[in-house]
């Protein structure tokens, strides 16, 4: 599957978000091995250099660890993933707030709508 990337964000950061999303959704589990850089590049239709940057970024975030000669694995540190969940929630909330602000809705007004949604 090739991915449709959004226009306004670097491709590497969209892929970082995608892998983080897969962890939160449970598609990737603690300790899972990620595909090799080339495999992931072919799978997503993206430059190998870009995927290398994605893997570096994930490692710097302590979300993955590289074991020499074995590949890249999702961390086994549960607390790191709890933190990731919190980060993603905050990001979503920030994004939501900027969007409603741009349209002139108040937070209170939107809270009512959110609560009435099932």
């Amino acid at each position, binding site marked *: 599957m*090739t*991915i449709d*990337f959004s*226009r*306004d*964000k*670097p*491709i*590497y950061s969209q892929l970082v978000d995608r892998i983080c999303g897969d962890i939160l959704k449970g598609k990737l589990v603690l300790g899972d091995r990620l595909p090799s850089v*080339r495999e992931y*590049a*072919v799978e*997503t*239709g*993206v*430059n*190998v*250099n*870009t995927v290398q*940057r994605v893997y570096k970024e994930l490692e710097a975030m302590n979300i993955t660890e590289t074991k020499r000669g074995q590949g890249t694995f999702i961390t086994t540190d549960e607390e790191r993933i709890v933190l990731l969940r919190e980060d993603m929630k905050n990001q979503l909330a920030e994004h939501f707030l900027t969007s409603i602000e741009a349209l002139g809705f108040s937070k209170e007004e939107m809270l009512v709508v959110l609560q009435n949604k099932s």
Partner: protein
Amino acid sequence: MLQLSNVSFRYMKKSILQDVSFTIPIGQIIGLVGENGSGKSTLLKVLAGLLRPSNGEVLLNGTPVTRRSADKIAYLPDIDLFFDFYTGEQLFQHYASQFEDFSYDKACIVAEFLQVDKNVKLRQLSKGNRGRMKMAATLGREVPYYLMDEPFSGLDPIVREQLIKGLIQFTDIEHQTILLSTHELYEVEPILDQIILLQNGSIIAHEEVETIRDVSNKDAVQWMKAYYKKG
């Protein structure tokens, strides 16, 4: 390193390239974009040593590029100059006789990956399948530089996606560089490290793709269009 310094090219009295300079390091996939007639094909032929620049020079690791440089540079032409009476198999044999670096086995693996039958005559293949076969023959060569003139042109989206994946799968970006011209920037952007934009034979922009997105919050297509509006 492939290096152009102040390259100009004239055909008859007409100026096709003007004062073009840039360097292509190893380990990059670079897109060459620009309108029809902006000089992309000519530039690729000059880089491949198939045309001699009227002014300036093209250096490969410090020595001037000539037709002999073909042992370091694989060139994929735009037009079907390919011997259409050959089968894929015969095409591979021909490549093997011309290029020492050609790996028959690799070409067959690429053809299989791209799902094209090497026992059919090229002229009996669809346009998409000829595009696949050309790609298999080109990637069968093991060279530091691949120059590809419109490898995706006129092909349907499924073939394009497959060729793009073939490029990623069968090149080694640590030791090889691909420079390709394309009009399908939207689809090709994810595999590019850099983009060179040509207009009327001159480079008007040369940028890293992630920088374009990071700094200008635009994708490559919008970035390119912005230059045309200015021009």
